[in-house]
């Protein structure tokens, strides 16, 4: 375990961890943007918007992130579009995140009690007013625990972009392993670093869930 005491290696790993966090933030930002649009499309009165969003979600949730990543990183250059590892990683993570967040957020919007929708309508609010002033503020509160929980999935899944040569935490581990030949020790340290990022997020999500009390509803435990 002498890697633990080598400052260069630990520094290199922590630098990788920083990229993991940065990529997660980018994925959450862009994925949240697209995911929000997908969620609104899923509950739109326009039929074409609903079916487009449903198709998108079904397609992405039925395909592994790794294949999406390969399709963008290796596939697009073959069509004449050049992509760097950073672009490929960000775009594929955005696609992946948007499909899952879109579904989570649609559920949150629809679990705002029906009476709230009706009351807003009775007050003669327009559709936009009803959405922005009545429904969304309440939906955000419902959506927060599962969204924080999904952040853990984002951080963990950024490890996949290591396979296209993007130097984040998992890739840094591979590079160090190439010179130390101590894979088990290196990956153990890396696992600890991932755990240190993800575990606080999991705890936060659980705490928020307990406070809002929507946990049972989300898991469909009511018979």
């Amino acid at each position, binding site marked *: 375990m002498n890697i633990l005491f080598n400052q260069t290696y630990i520094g290199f790993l922590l630098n990788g961890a920083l990229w993991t966090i940065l990529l997660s933030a980018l994925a959450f930002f862009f994925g949240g943007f697209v995911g929000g649009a997908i969620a609104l499309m899923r509950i739109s009165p326009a039929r074409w918007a609903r079916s487009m969003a449903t198709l998108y979600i*079904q*397609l992405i*949730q*039925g*395909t*592994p*992130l*790794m*294949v*999406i990543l*390969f*399709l963008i990183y*290796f*596939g*697009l*250059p*073959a*069509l*004449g579009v050049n992509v760097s590892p950073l672009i490929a990683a960000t775009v594929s993570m955005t696609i992946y995140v948007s499909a899952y967040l879109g579904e989570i957020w649609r559920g949150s919007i629809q679990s705002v009690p029906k009476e709230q929708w009706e009351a807003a309508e009775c007050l003669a609010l327009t559709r936009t007013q009803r959405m922005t002033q009545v429904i969304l503020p309440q939906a955000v509160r419902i959506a927060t625990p599962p969204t924080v929980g999904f952040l*853990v999935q984002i951080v*963990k*899944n950024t*490890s*996949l972009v*290591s*396979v296209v040569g993007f130097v984040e935490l*998992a890739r840094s*581990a591979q590079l160090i392993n190439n010179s130390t030949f101590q*894979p*088990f020790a290196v*990956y*153990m340290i*890396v*696992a600890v670093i*991932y*755990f240190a990022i*993800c*575990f606080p997020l*999991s705890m936060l999500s659980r705490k928020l869930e307990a406070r809002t009390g929507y946990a*049972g509803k989300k*898991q*469909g*435990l009511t*018979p």
Partner: protein
Amino acid sequence: MNLNYSFLAQHIPKLVDGAWMTIVLSSSSIALGFIIGTLLAVARRSSFPVLRFLTAAYVEIIRNTPLLIQIFLTFFGLSMLGPRLPAALVAVIALTINTAAYSSEIVRAGFDSIKPGQWEAGEALGLSRAQVYWHVALLPAIERVYPSLSSQFVLLMLASSITSQISVEELTGVANYLQATSYRPFETYTVTALIYLALSLALRGVLWLVGRIIFPRQHRLRKAVTA
């Protein structure tokens, strides 16, 4: 841009082999992971604090680290311990370790949703703790969380693509090989994505059918309510 899918026709047997490997990997780790996960869920509710702590720690460690790292640790860890195992076996072990943690958390929520009266009724009939779990709690608990379990299993099938990184010849592994030899990555990966899509639809269908067979009561109840 000129797309050409015709070259894939000669590689259909390879793709079928890869898809079959994906099915074998995921079905065996789903079955094993579900059984171990259920046992872990029981251990998590045990009256021994040490056992509770150990299972909780296991679940948290697995759920808060990436599957890719778990697969590498299993791969290198097992090769340190003894003779080199086939990559597919290592993959099943790693995927089982992962699924067990996720299913135990879901099944535990199912056990928690069983009303105290049910446990007490079982005890009042003189059943042992194991008998109460087996005859009273297990089926209704799993029935309630069956939708969550199903989506977890579909996620696992998709995640089995990661095992291509330890050179398992499953669908993604085959696709990587085909794109490297044909220099047609776009075509290869779109077809691969479609095969995964078909596999996940098929898995959802199978899980739905299994649910119908194991839990006929729920289905009849729902029918009676809507009628």
